[in-house]
């Protein structure tokens, strides 16, 4: 716009400086520190010994880490696609200006405002076979309640269901926002072209909200790969490590075993995983966009 000499040009820096200062000190600096620490045998209380890639080598050979990575990926897989599909369906149904739709929107968003402690508390007393609502229901039906929190085959789905219930709100909101960007006349044109409901969805709605879809999937994937509270509070990672996620493993290694170096190495591995997965998703979607 206007170039008004050095003071005016530095004025802009003054506006961004407060954020950049915090960003640098509280985010970027620890990030670099973490990479440094991960090359050490370091304990929580300050001892440091350089071991190069030792922690990474250990991690790659550690069956507990393998299990945690497997659990985390499985959880992401069990959460992200159903969550996305469900949210999209609900957004389609609720994308209208009626009072009823507003009430439903409120209901489906309400769980998102609860903190993880409360969500797990609620769901513990839904799922636990002793005092949970499902057990009460099973009792009433004369059935043996399912041990959701202690069976290796059930514990991951249980956490997934809890998480989906908890996280449905934001994707719905994002989809609603995306749907409202689609001009109404496109639908009118489609109706004139005698497009059916599915055709309209497939050829009009879906392409129009592709960016939103990508955003939802990426945000959710990144979020679920960092799943922590639900596993820690609901199952403690059990049974037999069957629900230990990577972040829970990081927490245990750092604060239970004091192995800060190993824990940061695990954190860097997770960081790399998240980068790869999101870049892959981004590439897959944009590549198809270029082709189409």
């Amino acid at each position, binding site marked *: *716009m206007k170039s008004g000499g050095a003071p005016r040009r530095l*004025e*802009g820096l003054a*506006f961004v400086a*407060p*954020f*950049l200062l915090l*960003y640098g000190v*509280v*985010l*970027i600096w*620890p990030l670099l*520190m*973490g990479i440094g620490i991960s090359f050490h045998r370091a304990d929580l209380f300050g001892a440091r010994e350089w071991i190069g890639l030792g922690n990474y080598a250990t991690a790659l050979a550690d069956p507990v880490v393998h299990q945690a990575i497997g659990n985390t990926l499985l959880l992401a897989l069990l959460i992200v696609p159903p969550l996305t599909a469900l949210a999209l369906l*609900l957004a*389609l*149904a609720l*994308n*209208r200006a009626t009072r*009823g*739709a507003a009430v*439903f*929107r*409120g*209901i489906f*968003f*309400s*769980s*998102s*405002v609860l903190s*993880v*402690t*409360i969500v797990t*508390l*609620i*769901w513990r*007393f*839904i799922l636990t076979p002793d*005092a949970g609502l499902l057990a*009460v229901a099973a009792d009433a039906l004369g059935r043996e309640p399912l041990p959701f929190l202690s069976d290796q085959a059930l514990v991951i789905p249980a956490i997934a269901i809890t998480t989906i*219930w908890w996280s449905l709100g934001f994707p719905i*909101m994002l989809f*609603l*926002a995306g749907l*409202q*960007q689609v001009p109404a006349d496109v*639908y009118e044109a489609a109706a004139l072209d005698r497009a059916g*409901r599915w055709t309209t*969805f497939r050829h009009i709605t879906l392409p129009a909200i592709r960016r939103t879809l990508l955003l939802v999937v990426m945000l959710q994937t990144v979020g679920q*790969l960092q799943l922590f*509270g639900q596993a820690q*509070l609901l199952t403690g990672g059990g049974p037999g490590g069957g629900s230990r996620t*990577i972040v829970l493993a*990081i927490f245990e290694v750092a604060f239970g075993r004091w192995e*800060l170096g190993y824990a*940061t190495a695990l954190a860097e591995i*997770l*960081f790399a995983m*998240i*980068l790869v997965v999101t870049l892959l998703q981004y590439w897959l979607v944009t590549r198809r966009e270029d082709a189409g």
Partner: protein
Amino acid sequence: MSATSPRAGLSGPVLALLLVGAAVMLTPMVWTLLLSVKSNAALLGDSGAALSPPYTLDNYRAILADRLTSRWLLNSLIVSLGTTAGVLVLSSLAGFAFARLEFPFRRSLFLFVLLGLAIPEQAVILPRHQLFATLGLHNSYPGLILPGLTGSFGVFFMTQYFRAIPRDLDEAALLDGASRLRLFWSVLLPLTIPAQATLGVFTFLASWNDYWWPLISATTSDYYTLTVGLASAQMNYAQTSGLGFLMAQAVFASVPILIVYIVFQKQIVRAMAGTAVR
């Protein structure tokens, strides 16, 4: 009619499915509410008792008498409001500058900030714990608030929003003799209120629900946030005998945030739909 025409009402089958979905969403909450109004003794060993009277408000009376829960609530409010205010101020200032001002390294700095979108908290949290120990920031409000202020999303979001405001408003203000600060404060900032509301609500929710960081940074009960405080109670086996109380705590802790949500629901939806400036 098509499922996507915005003015039409809900058709029968869709409505039925929505009702089922709403029931699934609400049942856990109703169950929690029921448990919270039962005496702890009645629930011992038989939570099914919650389905029938008698009900009591004793658990809520107990919470109001318990200074810890109120303290945690206050802590959560301070931390969440502080984080929200901080994010709004920092993001607005930076967003305005990135969108509107010329300064050295503007583009590089913006890219540098965008980089933050790709950094998960996990990659930072352990070293940050060490760093804050060195700085003596643990068990303090700044220690709980500062990490929440480093999110790139707010800056990115506000930059985009400022960019969407027509530049001729800036020019009109310049011709009206406004300084940069006045332009920012009196002309552009008021126009970003929908964005502020959205960013504010999301920041508040995220901060309110944060768990990992307060768990390791706020380690004395004076500085527990509700999330951590409730977790400490939840994992104590001594609380088995206090199921009703535990659930009442959960309800009590959720009320403020539900109020925030209900108050701002319109803003959330409207601002997310990206209302144009004019």
